[in-house]
């Protein structure tokens, strides 16, 4: 498999900054706004979005991490139980507008699980979705509010987001799946 780079580190940085502006614009400010990253690569991305908003708005938004492991509907299909990475929502969800942040939007199942998990913690006023990559092939009626880059893919392809905090590098690559039985997406 040869991976092809589709975003550089600089392009990721610019996409995050653009999304951060869009979020504030769509919300008409920062009041009652909270950013929640989905474990695992959504978490560092959420932190960066929050940092970018702090940069241009001068406001430090609450940031959380959401582990959706216990909400997945495919547990009986995976070979080993996923390791739980931890949920941390250090603020009251009730009445907030939560922006969920994830790296890749694919079938939509992860986001559905994330929304299930989120509402177990409280009742947000609204939930929005920001993703770095939207690669299509939705299986559920879910749409992102903010997208870093739309990437048309085939189902056999794997989109992989590398972030410094987890992978030690910054880029987005696309490659082709080699073996049957491998997960169809870069994550999940």
């Amino acid at each position, binding site marked *: 498999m040869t991976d092809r780079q589709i975003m550089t580190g600089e392009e990721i940085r610019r996409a995050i900054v653009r999304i951060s502006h869009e979020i504030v614009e769509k919300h008409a400010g920062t009041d009652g706004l909270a950013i929640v990253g989905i474990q695992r690569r959504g978490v560092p991305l959420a932190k960066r979005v929050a940092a970018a908003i702090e940069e241009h708005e001068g406001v430090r938004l609450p940031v959380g*991490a959401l582990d959706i492991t216990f909400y997945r509907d495919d547990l009986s299909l995976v070979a080993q139980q996923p390791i739980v990475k931890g949920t941390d929502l*250090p603020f009251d969800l009730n009445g907030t507008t939560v922006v969920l942040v994830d790296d890749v939007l694919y079938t939509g199942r992860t986001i559905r699980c994330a929304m299930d998990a989120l509402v177990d913690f409280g009742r947000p006023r609204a939930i929005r979705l920001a993703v770095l990559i939207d690669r299509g092939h939705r299986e559920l009626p879910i749409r992102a509010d903010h997208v870093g880059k739309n990437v048309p893919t085939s189902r056999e392809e794997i989109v992989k987001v590398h972030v410094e905090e987890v992978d030690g590098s910054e880029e987005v690559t696309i490659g082709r799946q080699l073996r049957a039985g491998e997960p169809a997406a870069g994550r999940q």
Partner: protein
Amino acid sequence: MSVQAYGAAGVPEIDSAPTQEVVWHHRHLLDVDALTWPEIELIMRTTDEMKGILARPIRKVPALNGRRVTTLFYEASTRTRVSFETAARNLSADVVSISTATSSVTKGESLVDTIRTLEALGAEILVMRHSVSGAPYLAAEVFGGHVLNGGDGWHAHPTQALLDLYTMRQHLPGGDLRGRKVAIVGDILHSRVARSNIWSLTAAGADLWLCGPATLLRGMDRWATAWGDGAIPGHGRFHVTSDVEVAVRDADVVMALRIQRERMQGGLLPSLREYAARFGLNAERVSLAKPEAIVMHPGPMNEGVEIAPDVAVSGRAVITEQVANGVAVRMALLYLLAGAHETGRPHDAHSGEAIR
């Protein structure tokens, strides 16, 4: 929900936590002796997450939605059964409950036949309590799903040992038991709790002391001697004594085990009164332990026998915490087992290699 340290940007440092990837491969959990230390730590971390769920407004996640957990109890133990069933329901599993009173066990059906029947009825995870040591190993041999030992004979009670370990870690700085003195006082001979705790606490590096009258310590001396020189990879030594003051002095953790009335008929003890006088955990004895020491008991307690009533309700007692942690540990184990589709090596239990 655990409190996280905040980094420079004011966001939780979730990803800075050490993330040693441990793959859970055990299809069954029959005793803690089969677990490596990293696996025990994985259980502890997963238990943290389950504690987080239990602290939420909605204490339930769909992780085991549609999976069937069957509890098969050949010994009455309402508290253990309820703990397992609560754990299973918190994970949205379907729970089927079989006890000797309701099953055909009393009509002489063999364990193997019972298990084959339960499997045919769709049981996927079997939580089993049995009075004969080793019975869950027989169950695991014939059952196509997962067996979780809820206590077998004198042999093992792995979920109790793990919840004990979890509770001790909560109360010790850094959750580190290395060099911490743990005294277990009571009927060691007949205790599956003691046996499983020997495996887990010697793996954790605790300074473990087992204490009881000589009649209830039988065989433990030779066990302790065999392990004395660090013979078992991944496990430290432990001590055996009939001197309760030696066991309790400067302890960080003091645990009392239940004394059963049958022991008098067996000629093992003169009387409960004498046991209470010589071995019971009273305030005076507990005062020999460290000031911040905790007092534990796996329950159910005979207050006034192995533990004095004032000790049982004192600020040092963490007995109700043990009960609460029991649900979280059992959630963690049900969750981990449910995902272990690939059979571990058939002999992963008791295998020398498997010990850390």
